[in-house]
């Protein structure tokens, strides 16, 4: 493997800086966010690198669990942050945490103990990158699904209540919104699956190939990851939509939009 030096990275950062200038000249209104996103990305990844080297070296399940927990919490927080309408009392974060824990985390444990079987099964080299890929995709899907659910509940309140008034259950009355939410949530994953191998070389595979792995081995890993990602996003979204829907209705099956507030 050919190693990159920090000088290489510094040289490449000129591209990012030039683009920033170009955006600014063209009246891009979010230049500040653009800089901040880049700085954040570099800082996060550098820290992650140091932190992971240490965790790999320590070979202690406590550290792996800790890194996993931080990743889960960050993903749950990001899900809540993407909501235009949020549930009161931080319930959006709880929905996020619950749905990713029930899917990404459980799937990860399953695949590590049954399929990959590294020794020990929680070995950081496998557990953490896999969890990252599952969380990243699930987070996007769940965030989109939940956002569609709450937005539509607010905007299509009349359509929901008309069905309730006809004596339909909350579940039946929300069916059309659930369908839309699921559709919005799953589209990016389906696009990713379709593009994989033709339009894009998935990140994990690219990484393995760059690191010298035989492409046909890398492909097997990638297919496994795709299966896991699809399952984890789909199930996670279903759970999040189910829990969100329930929260929007009271015991008398009345649509209760006061459960939500508009994020500033």
């Amino acid at each position, binding site marked *: 493997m050919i190693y990159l030096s920090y000088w290489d990275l510094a040289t490449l950062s000129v591209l990012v800086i030039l683009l920033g200038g170009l955006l600014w000249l063209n009246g891009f209104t979010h230049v500040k966010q653009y800089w901040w996103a880049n700085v954040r990305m570099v800082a996060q990844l550098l820290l992650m690198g140091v932190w992971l080297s240490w965790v790999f070296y320590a070979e202690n399940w406590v550290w792996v669990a800790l890194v996993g927990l931080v990743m889960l919490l960050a993903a749950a927080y990001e899900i809540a942050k993407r909501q235009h309408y949020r549930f009161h009392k931080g319930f959006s974060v709880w929905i996020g945490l619950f749905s990713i824990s029930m899917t990404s985390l459980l799937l990860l444990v399953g695949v590590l103990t049954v399929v990959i079987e590294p020794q020990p099964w929680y070995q950081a080299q496998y557990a953490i990158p896999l969890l990252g890929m599952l969380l990243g995709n699930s987070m996007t899907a769940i965030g989109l699904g939940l956002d569609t659910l709450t937005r539509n509940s607010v905007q*299509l309140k*009349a*359509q*929901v*209540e*008309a*069905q*309730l*008034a*006809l*004596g*339909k*259950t909350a579940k039946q009355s929300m069916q*059309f919104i659930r369908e839309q939410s699921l559709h919005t949530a799953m589209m990016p994953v389906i696009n990713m699956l379709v593009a994989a191998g033709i339009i894009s070389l998935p990140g994990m595979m690219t990484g393995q190939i760059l690191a010298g792995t035989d492409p046909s081995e890398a492909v097997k890993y990638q297919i496994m990851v795709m299966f896991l990602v699809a399952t984890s996003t789909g199930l996670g979204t279903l759970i999040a939509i189910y829990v969100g829907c329930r929260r929007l209705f*009271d015991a*008398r*099956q*009345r*649509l*209760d939009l006061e459960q939500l507030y508009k994020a500033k």
Partner: protein
Amino acid sequence: MVLQVNQLKAKGMRQAVSFSVPAEQLVLLYGVSGTGKSVLMRALADLIVHEGEVLLDGVEQRGLCPENWRRQVMYFSAETAWWRETVEEHFETLPSAETLHKLGLDNDYLKRSVNSLSSGEKQRLALLRGLLYEPRVLLLDEITANLDFDSALDVEKMVLDYSRQHQAGVLWVSHDQAQQKRLADSEWLWDIEDLYAGRPAENSGGVAE
């Protein structure tokens, strides 16, 4: 007695109201906007949180599951709501050709896209999809407010025919004075202000407590 209301209050109503609507009776309710008429109607259908009791033939609202209650005490809004593409997808059981014919519609309407309907057609079909459940009390919240005169008359006829055939009670919010005259005599023409003041008791004799 069909519908009996005791000390009903919800957010948006100035104070609690009590009244009752006898079988087959059509009551017209009017009043300045923002005084809580829609809120009252929606509370009666148990679509919003409220205090107080609502009874249908002595059975309390809370004693029935909400779906069951709302099928019997059914709320209809001014703006009809549609959640699918075509008309037929909004019906649990499809109406017969004869039923549609009576409303001046035909079977083709079921296949049509909701967007292709006039507001009069929409309101008739929205009423129909509810009436097929045979509700015992209709809560009509300005259902002809967006309609032209002829369509409004069609809707009125539909409601009157239904309530006669099924001995259903009707509580109708309307601001249209001509409509008020057409549909109800003064005894059953209630001002929401009178309800707040506890007054329709005196002229109707139908108010509880």
